[in-house]
Structure formats: structure tokens, C-alpha cells
């Protein structure tokens, strides 16, 4: 019996959803918002999931069927409407691209704020991290001192990705971010993820690239309409996933 890292019991997540598309007070009046303007929309439906420490799990599914919501629930950003979500290890923040990037501030400022907001407060450690982010992202010091609004999309991706993967998290959640960056940087990111994985971290990996998942994860789950439809060996899940589109 291995240690459980993540345990989800009958987790359901509902959003209050505007039934009649009411997004302003004008709509509120004209569309009769007084009578139940909100509707419950179920995003995740009765999810049961157990992930062991050190596992690397791929998550696939069509757009908008609950992958990101699942990750946000595990990250504690969304509270489930029903069921319990238990995470037994320390996690690094959910990795979505450009999260927390302030375009007016310089790259260095952004790294500093981002690492701080995600839990590293020690001043010496922050400086150390800035150095390693700088070297990992291959951005020059001059570039890092520019406001990030001057960056290209690829540079932004490098900065954002580097700020997260540079620490050694115990639980890392990656949400469709490997697609950006040039070939060299993509390979570097993959290598870094494998390093993190080999160091014993648990990784949840959302991607639409079957090859990437096969390369990184032994186990995968496929989410359809808010439910886990398949959970098993990556090869089988990928077969199922690719069949969805035929």
C-alpha cells in the first residue's frame, strides 16, 4: 500500500451559471433576472480519484469538459460543492501560462512576486530562485529588466514556465502549457519535468498531445462530461481518447 497523495471522494463541482445570459443590470431587468437568474451547471460529477505519491498522471479530454476545473479543485482554488478533496502533500501552484504576469513590470519583478505569492518568502532564496529562473529561461539579464509587455509570446512562456518548474515541488500540476516555446525549450521543459518526476514528485499533466503523455505518464485518465470515463494505463486511455474524435 503506497501513500496516497491525492484523494477525491464523490467530488462534484457546480457553477452558478446565468441561465438567461444575464451579465448586466440591463439584462437583469429585460430578461426577468429577479426570477432565479442563476442556474446550477455541473462541471464535475461525482469524481472518485486516488493518486499515489510519485505517480505521474496524464489527464485528457475534450475542451470544456472539466480538466482545468479538476486541477483547480485539487489545487484548492475551487471548493467542491459536494464530496471531499484531500491533498496530503505540499503543492506548487497550478501552472497556467501567464498567471500573475504583470505586463507593466519587468521580468525580474515578476519572478520575485510570483515566487513569493506561490509560497517562497525567504529573501535569500528568492534571489537564488531569480538566478536559476534566469538561467533556465535563457533570457538575458537585459531582457529580464525590460517590462514584460515588450516580450514575445514565446519569451513570456519561457518566463512563466521557468518561474514554476525551477523549484522542486512535491506536487506539480501542468495545464496545457508545453505547446508554446520553440523546439529547444520544449525539450528542455520535458527534461526538467522528468527530473522533477524522478526526484519523487507527483505530477498531474493536462495535454492534448498523446505522444507527450505516453512519454511522461504511465497512468492516465480521460474526462468526459465531468466524469472520469477511463482510468488506466496511458496506452489504453490514449486509444480511447483518440477514438473519441473518429
Amino acid at each position, binding site marked *: 500500500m503506497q501513500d496516497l497523495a491525492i484523494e477525491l471522494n464523490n467530488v462534484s463541482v457546480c457553477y452558478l451559471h446565468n441561465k438567461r445570459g444575464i451579465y448586466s443590470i440591463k439584462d437583469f431587468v429585460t430578461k426577468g433576472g429577479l426570477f432565479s437568474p442563476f442556474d446550477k451547471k455541473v462541471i464535475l460529477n461525482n469524481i472518485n480519484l486516488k493518486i499515489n505519491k510519485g505517480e505521474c498522471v496524464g489527464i485528457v479530454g475534450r475542451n470544456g469538459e472539466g480538466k482545468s476545473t479538476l486541477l483547480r479543485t485539487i489545487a484548492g482554488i*475551487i471548493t467542491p460543492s459536494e464530496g471531499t478533496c484531500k491533498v496530503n502533500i505540499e503543492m506548487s501552484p497550478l501552472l497556467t501560462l501567464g498567471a*500573475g504576469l504583470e505586463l507593466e*513590470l519587468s521580468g525580474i519583478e515578476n519572478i520575485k512576486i510570483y515566487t513569493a505569492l506561490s509560497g517562497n518568502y525567504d529573501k535569500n532564496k528568492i534571489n537564488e530562485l531569480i538566478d536559476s529562473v534566469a538561467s533556465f529561461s535563457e533570457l538575458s539579464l537585459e531582457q529580464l529588466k525590460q517590462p514584460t509587455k515588450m516580450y514575445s509570446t514565446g519569451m513570456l512562456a519561457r518566463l512563466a514556465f521557468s518561474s514554476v518548474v525551477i523549484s522542486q515541488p512535491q506536487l506539480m500540476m501542468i495545464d496545457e502549457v508545453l505547446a508554446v516555446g520553440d523546439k529547444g525549450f520544449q525539450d528542455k521543459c520535458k527534461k526538467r519535468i522528468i527530473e522533477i518526476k524522478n526526484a519523487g514528485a507527483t505530477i498531474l499533466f493536462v495535454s492534448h498531445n498523446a505522444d507527450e503523455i505516453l512519454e511522461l505518464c504511465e497512468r492516465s485518465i480521460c474526462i468526459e462530461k465531468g466524469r472520469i470515463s477511463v482510468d488506466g494505463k496511458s496506452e489504453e486511455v490514449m486509444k480511447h481518447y483518440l477514438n473519441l474524435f473518429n
Partner: protein
Amino acid sequence: MKPLNLYTLYFLVYKNLQLKYKHSLLGFVWSFVHPLFYLLIFNFVFSKAFSQIENYTLYVLSGLIFWVYFSGSCNQLSQTFIKNAHLIKSLQVKKILYPFSEQLTELISFLAGFVVFIGLMFFLNLKINFTILYIIPIIILFSIFIFSVGLILGSLNVFFRDVGILWNTLNPALFYLTPIAYSSDIISNENNFYFKLNPLFHFFYIIRNVLYEGKSPSLHYSINCIIITIIFISISALIYKKTKNGFISNL
């Protein structure tokens, strides 16, 4: 969790300050240029019209700096959740810290300007005595009041974006309904009751007690202010609690 939140708060305030002042040449100077500019206009236009107000410049200044603090903070707070949408969606930071850090940022720039204006007030013949220390609890109370108003606006703004627009419309109206450039004496007695429904009236009354008349704040109006603040805190807490879980799906 506690020290963690404190550090998070520190870095959010740091970020706000950087964003606010980094790319402006004058930086902190703006926090007193803005009221100073209005002061000059009011002094120029109204000092003759309201000649019955003694020391009109000091009268306007004492109200104006607090008005600028109020309206500026409410504007920022009404946008705070929308502005930080990407952070709310991906970091596990308590959501209340975003408006709180915004309020602290505003308080810091208000205080920076305030220090300068206190100097200016002495220059304008404000009586120097210890009663001026009463302004410290008043600022704290006023800040809590502003925070609750801003939190209400910010939470509702997530769901109905026109709350922010509505606020921009109401803002100048509120300015003219509050005795800042004129004295409340000019309001007739029968309208006086409605006039006092404006919560800001009570705050500006005790602020004037201290910074214009140079005496301790009226007990009656101080109690009013405390009651108003408690009411607004309760409303904002209720609204925030009801709405916070829906933020993510609406941002």
C-alpha cells in the same frame, strides 16, 4: 497559515505600489498633486461664493484629501477582483487579500500625501494641539468604512460589470451631496434629515472637527460613524460570503 498570509499581503501591496508608481515620473508626488489641483480650483472659484466660511482654503483642504482617498480607493477596490482574475484562477491565495492589499496601498499613498498636507494645514492656521491625534482613530475607522464599501462594489462587479460603471456615475454625485466645498449650514432644516442619510456626511463632520476647528470630534457624530461602519462591514461580509465561490466562473 498566518505568517504566510502576512507575507502574501506584503508582496501584493509591493506589487500594487510598483504598478502604481513605477512608470510615472513623479511617483508618490501624485498622491498630493491631485488634491492640491482641486484645492486651487475650489479656492479660485468658490472662496467668494462661500465667503461666510472662515478660512475657506483650510475648510476645503480638510475635506478634499479625505474625499480623494475615499473615491480613489473605491474605484480601485471595485475593480480589484477583475484585475486579479488570472491570479485568483491559478494561485491558492485567500481572495480577501486582493481588496485588502489594494486598500493598504491606497492608505499608504494617502498617508504619504497626508503628511505633507498636515504641514500645509499648519501653514493655513490650523490650531496646533494634541486633539489632532484624534485623526488617527478617525483615519482607521474611515479606512474600514471605505474597505467595506469597496468590497461590496468589488464583489458585485464580478457578476454585473455595470456596478463599476454605475459607481463612476454616482461618484461625482456623491461628491456634491457631501459638504466638501460648501458648508452644511446652507441646507434648509426640512431637507437636513435626507442630507444626513449620506454616510459620508458624518465622517466629514468629525474630520472637520479635528482638522478645521482644531477640537476633539463630536461624540454624537463619532458614534454615528462607528454604527455606520458596523452596518457596512456586516453588509459587505454578507455579500462577499455569498458571492466569493462564484467568482471563478464569472471572471
